């Protein structure tokens, strides 16, 4: 029993050496990640910040203008309008994609042809956003010989409505396209999350006296709240960077009615060679994303959810 007391504590010299090499080792292990982050994240961010306070006409960054670019942007009505449009996208696109995704995932789980349904709903994800825009431009076409939607409305003697030509409808019409394109993604993510809920918990709720509606809102939704928030963040980030759908379908029109931030950046500033102003738009997008990112990181750190 007392054969090897020597082995209990390691030799002292060795322990000291271990402590001395501590920091070097730590840096060595961190280095690859740090170098990559510095080159590909920190440097571009700082560089963009620097560019955003320069006139940058035609890519020539030699004239410091302070906050002029920002002030000018905020005084441009079309830019402010594009921010409002982006907010519309964030609110309606994100909400409906999640709602439809969750609804389809829940319903699909209860029927025999689950995988077929999911495959069909997921199909739009395989279509490039530009192709998506072209397809839906046909659906929305005013001529009811081409436009499916107006043809359908024609049956009940409504229209034809110029979906993409009317400032009151154009954003709703574009957001609907986005929702159509992303619902499949949400369905697949949420369907996987739903599968993670043990059947016994749902059965326990059932024997506890819950009806299907109560089970959905009081058990299922809270239990998939983490995947839902991850999904929401992903969708919001994508939508803040949104460019393709308005570009293909309306070119930001009619007038400036359907412009979004990224489109504004492209149209006004790159086209006009005002790279400093474009950088300022990028910085504003970054600032808009910060709260979303903070929320995301907190969410992952918190152990409040399952």
């Amino acid at each position: 029993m007392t054969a090897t007391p020597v082995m209990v504590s390691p030799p002292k010299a060795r322990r000291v050496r271990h402590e001395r090499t501590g920091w070097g080792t730590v840096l060595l292990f961190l280095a690859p990640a740090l170098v990559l982050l510095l080159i590909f994240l920190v440097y571009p961010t700082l560089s963009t910040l620097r560019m955003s306070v320069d006139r940058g006409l035609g890519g020539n960054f030699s004239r410091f203008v302070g906050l002029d670019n920002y002030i000018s942007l905020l005084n441009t009505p079309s830019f402010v309008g594009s921010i409002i449009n982006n907010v519309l996208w964030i609110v309606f696109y994100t909400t409906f994609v999640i709602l439809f995704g969750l609804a389809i995932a829940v319903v699909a789980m209860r029927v025999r042809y689950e995988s077929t349904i999911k495959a069909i709903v997921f199909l739009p994800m395989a279509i490039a956003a530009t192709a998506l825009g072209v397809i839906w431009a046909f659906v929305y076409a005013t001529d009811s010989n081409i436009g499916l939607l107006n043809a359908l409305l024609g049956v009940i003697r409504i229209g034809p409505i110029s979906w993409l030509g009317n400032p009151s409808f154009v954003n709703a019409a574009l957001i609907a396209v986005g929702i159509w394109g992303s619902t499949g993604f949400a369905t697949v993510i949420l369907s996987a999350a739903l599968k993670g809920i043990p059947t016994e918990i749902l059965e326990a709720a059932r024997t506890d006296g819950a009806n299907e509606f109560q089970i959905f809102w009081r058990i299922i939704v809270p239990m998939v709240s983490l995947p839902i928030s991850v999904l929401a963040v992903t969708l919001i980030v994508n939508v803040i960077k949104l460019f393709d759908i308005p570009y293909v379908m309306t070119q930001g029109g009619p007038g400036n009615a359907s412009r979004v931030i990224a489109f504004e950046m492209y149209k006004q500033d790159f086209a006009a060679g005002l790279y400093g102003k474009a950088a300022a738009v990028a910085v504003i997008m970054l600032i808009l994303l910060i709260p979303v990112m903070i929320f995301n990181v907190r969410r992952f750190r918190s152990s409040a959810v399952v």
Partner: protein
Amino acid sequence: MATVTFDHVTKKYGDVLAVNDLNLAINEGEFMVLVGPSGCGKTTSLRMIAGLEEISSGELKIGDRIVNDVPPKDRDIAMVFQSYALYPHMTVRDNMAFGLKLRKLPKSDIEKRVNEAAGILSLDKLLDRKPKELSGGQRQRVALGRAIVREPAVFLMDEPLSNLDAKLRVQTRAEIARLHQRMGTTFVYVTHDQVEAMTMGTRIAVMSDGLLQQVGTPQVLYDTPSNRFVAGFIGSPAMNFVEVTADNGKLVGPEGWVAELPGRLRNAVGAVNGRKLIAGFRPEHLELKEAEGQTVTVPGRADVVEYLGNEELLHVTALGKDVVAIVDSDNRVKPGDVLQLLLPYTKLHLFDAESGASLISEREQVAA
């Protein structure tokens, strides 16, 4: 409180018969244990009571009401699941209160019931914790608590102890038995562990292959198993079985072993000579020194001796088989010892080799 009645209840999954024509009447306030090996249909039967499994044919009644088509929420039952199935996003308090909130009970009532149940199960200090912050035993008690607060007509439990360690299992076993005494509600309890069944059940229903084998008090099942399956399933270590042939009022076994049958057994075996039978005897009924009444001798040689303190568990080569015997540890049997094991005739069971049915009816056994 309510009775539960299975009337020719059958459950099929496609072509597979999970429960085959089950007839079982569970009395009011009874602790009924459904026991059997996995796949025997016991859990399916319990889930049919809960309404989580549809009934293919037959009638199921809770009290006087046929509940075949009644959804779980309207059956007035509470169920404890094997995995506990606690709601992970709710505190212990909310877990227990969930069913009551759904029934729109006044807040003060809910609080009173939850606190009372927490007191009974010593969960007072854990009420604000989430399930993942609890140990297995604590989670198990929360699952019980969630069922208790509901004050249901029938309690259903699906192997609630199987995820606990051995010590906690014994503790909780007693706790559940106490709970039953205190509440007096009908309990239906599913387990594959015959020890749990024997210690907790008012009556036990033994199932195998979807068929109900025997229902009775623990004592009846132990003393007079109605067939070979029940005999082998109830009791630990399991009963020894030896193939024998009836011959002129004698039993002829392997290695020239012959047992003279006393009158009672002679009648049961009948006059047919050459009938193939299975003789069964429990390890704890074999004696080394003296036994009460008329006995039959089983000669053998000890192979392995497991010392258990007060007793010794012997693996004996006898009648061409490994026969297990439990004897007093004063005997100090050593491996290799040649033994003469004595078995009282009253403890001898005989089963038909083909059907497995016991040849001795309950009445005869009790009389003998």
